[in-house]
């Protein structure tokens, strides 16, 4: 218990330390805030401009979560289809790898072309970027289910649906949550890229405008917001993950609770 606490304290100290180091380095070397603003400047900007920043943050969060939700839903469905049969898995996997290796940034102009600028391309980019990790992990989780575990159900005359619900899905859950944590971070990337290219709202757009005005502390304020949102969602999913798939990590506190 104490060793876990010690690790947590060490992590916090490291985070604070990085910021302090950054602050001190800026002061020491006299770095202009046009190049690299000090963290204290960024935080002050964040505080002073919050009423104007908040709508952007809300827009980005909303777009990301919508895209993420769509992406995960689509990913789970496709993953189920591909993962539930070995044939489908082997046949579809090369195509999937091909798709997932396309840099998703490159499709933003296409979405803008199709749907105009604004929220829609941002949601779509966020969606498409978060689909693939989910598909690949769901499919792998299902396809690697031990046949012995399925046999247990098959002797009980279980239907395909029973097997999926009672063995396939629970077995795939650790894979699914691992992919969620990747997907939610990527999802932010997608939104921000799209907002930067074609939108008049959102943190990405705000940062673009701020940088064209050489308001570098404001640009960094945007970064801080993105980091904060990203971390919050990551932590959220980690907490759910620990509750749902603790069995896979053999956590002693999971067994007790």
């Amino acid at each position, binding site marked *: 218990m104490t060793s876990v606490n010690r690790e947590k304290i060490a992590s916090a100290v490291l985070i604070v330390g990085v910021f302090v180091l950054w602050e001190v380095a800026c002061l020491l070397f006299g770095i202009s805030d046009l190049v690299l603003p000090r963290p204290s400047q960024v935080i002050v900007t964040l505080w002073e401009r919050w009423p104007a920043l908040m709508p952007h943050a809300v827009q980005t969060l909303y777009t990301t979560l919508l895209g993420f939700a769509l992406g995960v839903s689509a990913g789970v469905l496709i993953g189920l289809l591909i993962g539930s049969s070995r044939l489908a898995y082997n046949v579809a996997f090369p195509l999937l790898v091909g798709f997932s290796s396309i840099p998703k940034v490159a499709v933003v102009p296409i979405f803008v072309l199709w749907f105009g600028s604004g929220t829609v391309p941002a949601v779509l980019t966020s969606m498409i970027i978060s689909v693939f990790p989910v598909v690949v992990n769901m499919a792998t989780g299902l396809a690697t289910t031990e046949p*012995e575990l399925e046999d247990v159900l098959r002797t009980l005359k279980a239907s395909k649906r029973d097997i999926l619900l009672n063995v396939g899905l629970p077995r795939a859950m650790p894979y699914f949550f691992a992919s969620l944590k990747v997907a939610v971070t990527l999802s932010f990337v997608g939104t921000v890229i799209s907002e930067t290219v074609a939108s008049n709202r959102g943190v990405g757009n705000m940062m673009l405008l701020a940088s064209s005005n050489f308001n570098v502390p404001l640009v960094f304020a945007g970064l801080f917001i993105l980091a904060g949102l990203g971390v919050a969602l990551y932590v959220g999913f980690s907490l759910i993950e620990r509750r749902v798939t603790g069995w896979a990590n053999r956590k002693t506190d999971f067994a007790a609770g």
Partner: protein
Amino acid sequence: MFLKNSTPAETIALTTPAEPVKPGAVYPVIEFERVTVRYGKDAGATQALAESSFHIDKGDFIALVGPSGCGKSTILKLVGGLIQASDGHVFVARREVGAADVRIGMAFQNPTLLPWLNIRDNVMLPLKIARPFRDEWRSKRKGEYRDRADALLESVGLRDFGEKYPWQLSGGMQQRASLCRALIHDPTLLLLDEPFGALDQFTREELWATLQALWMERRPTVLLVTHDLRESAFLANRIMVMSARPGRILMDERVDFARPRTLETTYQPEFTSLTQSLRNLIVAARGGMAGHP
């Protein structure tokens, strides 16, 4: 009735279910008609089971013994509907496997407990899946079904482990839990694939008695695959000895020691001479691996 004492010529006609099962009538619950099983295809195929025909009566206790890799587990998997015969027919309760209206309980060589469920939920799994229990799963899983699982766990010495997860238990304890899972839905056909293999001698002998008591009370048809000749002679009414791969049945013998058998039984000269003759047969079968087909 051609069902009893049927000759091969008559039973070949049995490709479709013949007459309906009469309640109370003794009929073979398992029928193998010239069953062959090959794994793999064409040239690379290994034959696991050579053309085998036999019948097993309802309520009988069969032990399958033989050298390892001789197709004992293959027979269990055929009956459980997990694999299909390459040639021939397997009937369970006079229907093709799968269509049969028989509740099957199966315990595998490995405990195969689901790691995301605690021990009690693992044991209750068949009640969630198998008919007719699944229809009442929602209303009974916190009451009757749960009590049933706990009672069964207690009978194998796992009373305090219902809340634990499989990985928190030793191999032998997991195996006992897996045995509970095979029994909880009161199966009429019990398929046991070396269920006591991972247990120590004392636990094993205790569980023999438990299994015998259970069989005498509920009279399921039991098919037990085992390496332990004393186990087969202690538990079974009928022992089938199989040859080395491709497996075929070398000897089919009834065991008539009075029930309930006790550990005393195992020290009687008849018992010892039975296990000894089984042993000689299997040693010969292993030695004959290269020479005879």
